[in-house]
């Protein structure tokens, strides 16, 4: 906390501590990178994070593997994942924009209750709703379908989008809306021609988050999808290191391909996330 610079040994000590901690933090990630380029199916033959031999064999095998109908398996799972994540994002954003605006700008009875319930639903994980949703989708014949999975993901995507967008709308200057109202614009016109264009960055960030959440979700997908042809990427990756035949090489290659893009996205948008999450928790 000190404003002045402390003595040199302390400075060096702190840097060393930080270096050790960072090594520990990065070690598992480096192991995966190593495994992706190292021949062999076993996970770790040596604790060193540097591969002895380098090969692209795992990537080639992964990308050229074919499913039961002769289709390219990795491509198919990527398409499934993309479809689910994009559909979830679109549903989440489309349904929550107007609600977030109402909660941010209007005062009406039940507003507090609505805010709290959106927050509570967002905090309580989908695993609580998993059993009833499973039973309901079973009754509706939507088990083992990607559209059923989108419905399940929307249970958390919508409240998340409502809260994050509300936070963003709160930050827009109030005078703007007042001016538009004085000029005779109705609520729909204000929303459509002023709020939405202004909120574009906020909407983009929210959309990216809800895309990433759906893209990275594992347990619900593995419960609701039973047909291997429909697996999303996480389910496919998990099944590549199953109990009986584990191919860590392909897993590592797949993990890199699957998570590098979303990790990059994460760094682009992460500074907005904390604000949204804790703002919700503090104000709720």
């Amino acid at each position: 906390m000190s404003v002045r610079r402390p003595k040199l040994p302390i400075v060096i000590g702190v840097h060393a501590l930080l270096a050790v901690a960072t090594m520990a933090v990065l070690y598992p990630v480096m192991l995966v990178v190593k495994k992706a380029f190292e021949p062999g199916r076993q996970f770790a033959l040596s604790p060193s994070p540097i591969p002895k031999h380098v090969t692209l064999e795992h990537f080639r095998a992964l990308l050229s593997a074919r499913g039961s109908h002769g289709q390219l398996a990795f491509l198919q799972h990527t398409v499934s994942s993309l479809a689910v994540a994009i559909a979830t994002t679109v549903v989440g954003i489309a349904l929550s924009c107007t609600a977030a605006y109402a909660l941010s700008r209007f005062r009406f009875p039940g507003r507090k209750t609505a805010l709290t319930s959106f927050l509570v639903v967002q905090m309580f994980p989908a695993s609580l709703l998993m059993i009833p949703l499973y039973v309901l989708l079973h009754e509706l014949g939507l088990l083992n379908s990607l559209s059923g999975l989108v419905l399940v993901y929307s249970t958390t995507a919508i409240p998340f989008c409502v809260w994050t967008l509300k936070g963003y709308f709160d930050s827009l200057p109030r005078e703007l809306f007042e001016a538009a109202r004085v000029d005779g614009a109705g609520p729909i016109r204000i929303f459509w021609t002023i709020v939405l264009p202004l909120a574009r960055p906020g909407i983009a960030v929210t959309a990216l988050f809800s895309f990433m959440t759906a893209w990275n979700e594992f347990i619900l997908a593995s419960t609701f999808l039973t047909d291997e042809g429909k697996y999303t990427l996480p389910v496919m990756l998990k099944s590549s290191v199953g109990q009986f035949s584990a191919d860590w090489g392909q897993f590592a290659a797949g993990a890199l391909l699957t998570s590098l893009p979303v990790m990059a996205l994460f760094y682009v948008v992460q500074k907005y996330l904390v604000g949204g999450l804790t703002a919700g928790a503090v104000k709720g």
Partner: protein
Amino acid sequence: MKAGDLRRALRDALLVGALLWIAVTAAFVRDRNKDATQRALRHAQAAAELVAIGDTPPTPTAAAAIVGAPVASKQHGFLRRRVAHTAAGERPLGGPTAPAVDKLLYDAAGRYDKDGPFVAMLSDGSERAVAAVATARGPAIAITAGPEPRAPVPWLAVLGHLGLMLVLVGVGAVLGGRARGVGVALGLATWAFPAYFAGGPGLALAMLAVAAAAGWAHATGATDRAIASVRAHKVALSFLAPAGVAMIVLVVVPFAVGLALGFYDHHHGRWTFVGLANFKRILTGDGHALSDPLNFWFILGVTLAWTFVNVMLHVLFGTLFALILRQPWLKARGLWRVLLIVPWAVPNYITALIWKGMFAGEYGAVNSILSGLGLDRVSWFSSWATAFSANVATNTWLGFPFMMVVALGALESIPKELEEAAEVDGASSWQRFKEITLPHLKPALGPAIVLGSIWTFNMFNVIALVSGGKPGGSTDILVTDAYRWAFERGEQYGMAAAMGTIIFLLLLGWTLIGRGLTKGDEEARP
């Protein structure tokens, strides 16, 4: 009598009646489909039994034959041909001129070879049933011709019922005073009759309860006030509607269903009402001793320990790194920060699988490092303490960056002048930490801790993918145990739902306590 009274009473009755109508119709359709399914299954079974003894079935069938065992084709050894024996003689299944139902016969014979005699609906959505019965020459298979006819909608009864409802409501309104509410309640209570026939006594009771509530709300003027308020805020409410309706359909309904399922037992597709039996079974430990990993209280203990240890470590490491990263003399602060939040960016199922791989086996990365340091290799998943530690290590790794970022944000809000002034006044580092840093950290960390503890309490992926509950389910937490009830112990959805309700109540209690605790901080916020 006032015309307004009649209008308002009819309005309330029709509004609530529309909801009841949806529920009763849904129950009616479900009941009717179940009935049709059962008839289809019965017909298929009867037809197959007749085919087995060489008779022709009385009801129309899409296909009916005794199908022989598969024989390798002469030209193509990998093809397995079957022969169908029908009343018209014998013919091979399949081939260029074969009818399309041959495929269904072939598949049914294959299923018979695997499972024995069966009767089931075809999974192609055509609402046809297929049955296979054993004979000496192979399975006798019958497939029904098409969807069974459904019972017609009793329109006359519907019309009569609607009339009765309106009359009761109208009479109440005409009499005025107390009778208005009673009329609405009685009119709506008529829904109990169709509900009883379509959905049983449970649904009928629910209708009566709704009717009573609606009557009471009408009598006290609650509906008038609600409608006036909706009118006054119609813009806001219509903006809220899309997400609100979606939440009701996707969250409120499943949630209510989940609460209700906890009172039922599920066995082979059949639901039986068992009252509080599931909860009793869970809370009394289901016949397991307290030290048994299958006892609820044992799992609860593990869950609480898991949550507490993890959140503590998250806060500890998160705050420690945040305090370090904040020092102005630190070199490459941005870079350290970027590297330290890598675990947050990695999808957590991948993290869990990596750590599982690192702990697994005698030659996993962790064991290799241990032996490199001259320590003994550990079989991580064969004792509780080591398996639990493996889970905690994984979860600490993936969870501390969140707390670190929250703490960093909070520390940034400390005014520089405050610290400089304290230093000039000769406050020690500890004093400055206690009097300046800590009060700034608390309001941000409080909610983050509540949020983080809920996440950890439900951290399904780490438990399921790292230790998988090993050894013997002893590292399971409540959510993974609920999952096992549903998907690994014979589809006991009722028990799983009861478990879900208990988890919800625990979290609700904790959130309320947590809010109480953090509220004080918020008021004290500088």
